[in-house]
């Protein structure tokens, strides 16, 4: 019989046999818990009605509103702000300027950028260097080309935009 039940677990007969066996065994032990007294049922209705009153009162509604709207809203906003702080790029971050990079170099390296190494003055310090070492006045540019001569060769080797700048400086200098 067991084999048949194992093979056909969904048959009504197998179910009835099992149920019957369980009822028989349970019958001896008396498995039904005692029924609560009548007063319990009357009292139950009163308690449920009280709870419904509480649930539909203004206070409960406001708690309900807080639970459904306000608290999830606050949580969402806080989560958004936390996410923004950790995920969004830091707006205060900026690329270091060329001046920052240059000023971070050892003094000797800065000197070598500024002048011909053969004319480098060992006494030149970082404080003597302008804040932005790559900003030159028109006067300085003009003097460079006058000192080094052969401006035509220089103009051939540089881009048109820079050549125009040099020419404008030279023309200004000539005036």
């Amino acid at each position, binding site marked *: 019989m067991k084999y048949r039940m194992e093979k056909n*677990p*969904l048959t009504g007969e197998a*179910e009835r046999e*099992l149920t019957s066996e369980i009822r028989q*065994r349970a019958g001896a*032990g008396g498995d039904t818990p005692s029924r609560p007294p009548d007063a319990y049922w009357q009292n139950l209705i009163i308690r*449920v009605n009280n*709870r*419904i009153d509480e649930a539909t009162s203004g206070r409960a509604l406001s708690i309900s509103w807080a639970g459904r709207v306000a608290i999830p809203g606050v949580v969402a906003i806080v989560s958004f702000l936390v996410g923004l702080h950790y995920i969004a790029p830091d707006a205060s971050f900026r690329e270091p300027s060329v001046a920052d990079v240059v000023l971070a170099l050892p003094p000797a390296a800065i000197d070598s950028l500024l002048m011909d190494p053969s004319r480098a003055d060992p006494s030149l310090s970082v404080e003597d260097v302008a804040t932005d070492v790559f900003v030159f006045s028109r006067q300085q540019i003009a003097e460079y080309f006058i000192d080094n001569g052969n401006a035509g060769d220089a103009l051939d080797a540089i881009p048109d935009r820079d050549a125009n700048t040099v020419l404008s400086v030279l023309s200004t200098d000539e005036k």
Partner: protein
Amino acid sequence: MEPRSDIELVQEVRNGRRQAFTELMRRYQERVYWVARRIVGSHDDADDVVQETFVKAYLALGEFRGDSSFFTWIYRIAVNLSLNALRKRQVLNYLHESELLSRILPSPDDPEKDLEHSETESALQHAVATLPEKQKAVFVMRYYDEMTYEEIGRVLKTSVGGLKANYFHALRKVREHMRNEIQDGEKPSHG
């Protein structure tokens, strides 16, 4: 005067007549109580479930569309709340076992609890308590309430085939558990 149908009472509640809901409670409180009691095992937990079931039903009555009967609808609420109560208790038991709760809760030496505990000590209830929650719910509805698979399917929103398989497994487990318990009880005690 002929008693009003569930649907008529529901309509009256919707129209603001609270007394009609009391009538619905009177009709179903015992069945709701017993399904909860069979699933959760104790009177106190069942009492909580019954109250919660009716409060939820009242508040959600606007969502009751009448696709199923009012009883099926409220029964479904009760079964779901009972299963939730079981899960909560499992978590509490786990915490208790790990001795976290034992530091903050007094020991349960309430005599009423002891009485209730001994009352639920029957072999069948022991066996039902060991079932997984889905099988337990199906077992309670089928074995105790003698509901048809179609009715249970409407409550649990599950296929009849799945329910039959669940019930069959539950029956076998219960039978094995009872057999073992009875055999253990018949063994002579040593010492």
